């Protein structure tokens, strides 16, 4: 067993420097690595390129890094819900590459799986296709999308063991397993870190080989963006 455990958040984010590219798991605020993001927002690293499906909200998640203008470029599929983001984007301070969500997921997966590029029908004929090779398969046009990798990938899981094996909960899984594969250094923060042998190998979602550092998150706020409920009859 290779022990991946780091004890402090500083160890977890050690090596992140200005101008690097990093991935952040999560969909909306669900399944985001809260502790790593909060620690990055305290570090003096700037000009970062961030690959994340969303951009957090103004005062939580990646919004914290945007407020300090640490991010130079965002690669995302949906960036509503964040006024500061919109301001920086429209003023040209922030470079934004918007790509279809399925292409983003597959580009991360491909990056981690050693596949440099693939053809997809998503985005054909739209702005997204500009400058991309088009090829017809089965009578339908497809565009070439390149794989994504990153200097660091920050992911969040429900449970993990010190070997880096991860289990996710609910829809908090989303981009986390894919980004875990695509990081040169993948840092996983978990709600519950357990000794090896405690997780059932049949139930592990992300094999520890994809994870370089694992940390028990100090606390989880787990904010809800859209609280929708029904009333009891």
């Amino acid at each position: 067993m290779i022990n991946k455990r780091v004890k402090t958040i500083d160890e977890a984010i050690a090596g992140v420097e200005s101008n690097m590219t990093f991935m952040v798991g999560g969909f909306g605020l669900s399944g985001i690595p809260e502790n790593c993001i909060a620690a990055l927002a305290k570090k003096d690293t700037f000009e970062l390129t961030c690959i994340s499906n969303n951009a957090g909200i103004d005062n939580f998640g990646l919004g914290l890094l945007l407020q300090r203008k640490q991010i130079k470029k965002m690669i995302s599929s949906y960036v509503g819900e964040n006024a500061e983001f919109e301001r920086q984007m429209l003023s040209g301070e922030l470079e934004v590459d918007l790509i279809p969500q399925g292409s983003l997921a597959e580009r991360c997966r491909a990056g981690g799986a050693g596949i440099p590029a693939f053809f997809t029908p998503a985005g054909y004929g739209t702005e997204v296709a500009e400058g991309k090779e088009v090829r017809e398969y089965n009578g339908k046009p497809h565009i070439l999308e390149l794989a994504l990798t990153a200097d660091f990938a920050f992911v969040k899981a429900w449970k993990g063991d010190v070997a880096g094996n991860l289990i996710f909960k609910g829809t908090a899984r989303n981009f986390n397993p894919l980004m875990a594969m695509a990081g040169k250094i993948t840092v996983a923060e978990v709600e519950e870190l357990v000794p090896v042998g405690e997780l059932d190998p049949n139930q592990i979602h992300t094999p520890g080989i994809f994870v370089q550092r694992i940390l028990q998150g100090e606390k989880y706020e787990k904010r809800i963006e859209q609280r929708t409920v029904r009333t009891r009859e």
Partner: protein
Amino acid sequence: MALDKNQIAQRIAQELEHNMYVNLGIGIPTLVANYIPKGIDIEFQSENGVLGMGPFPFEGEEDPDMINAGKQTITTLPGAVLFDSATSFAMIRGRHVQLTVLGAMEVAENGDIANWKIPGKMVKGMGGAMDLVASAENIIVAMMHTNRAGESKILKKCTLPITGVNCIKKVVTNLAVLEVSKEGFKLLERAPGVSVEEIKNSTEAGLIIEGGVPEMQL
């Protein structure tokens, strides 16, 4: 009377078939789940990674780890399954999801749809919409027929940046049910009490009208 948003959803629900896998977009499409006809089993997929989505949770039972693609708290039904985003879009791109219902800002008679960007105004991103429209076998659009200024959103050609080309199959608006054919929009049904003339006047695109156009049955 033109339909309200719930009635548009109700009319779209009539298109559901037994044992279908369906993806519902944000807005009016989400309401379709409230009108599933009796005796029909449907599995709802949400592209952030759940199949077998159930209703909203009871108050106090909201779980931040259980949301839909609109970031709303949800529940799952027995038989539900959770997965990562790449698997989710494999279901969509691989045409395992049979029906997609989504909203639009504009649709065009060649089957194009625009629903993700207003240049200089609204730039929030396409989310999963481009993957969904590029691959879905059947796409139904739920939308209002005109904008707030009364201008048609049913066009000869989209003016906004498009989300997908030549992909939508049917459009249900507050005024009409339209089918996208090779020749253009076919007027299939009209909202109760709304005349063919009124629909024509609210539609920039040409309309193919074959015989009498029946009223929608709600």
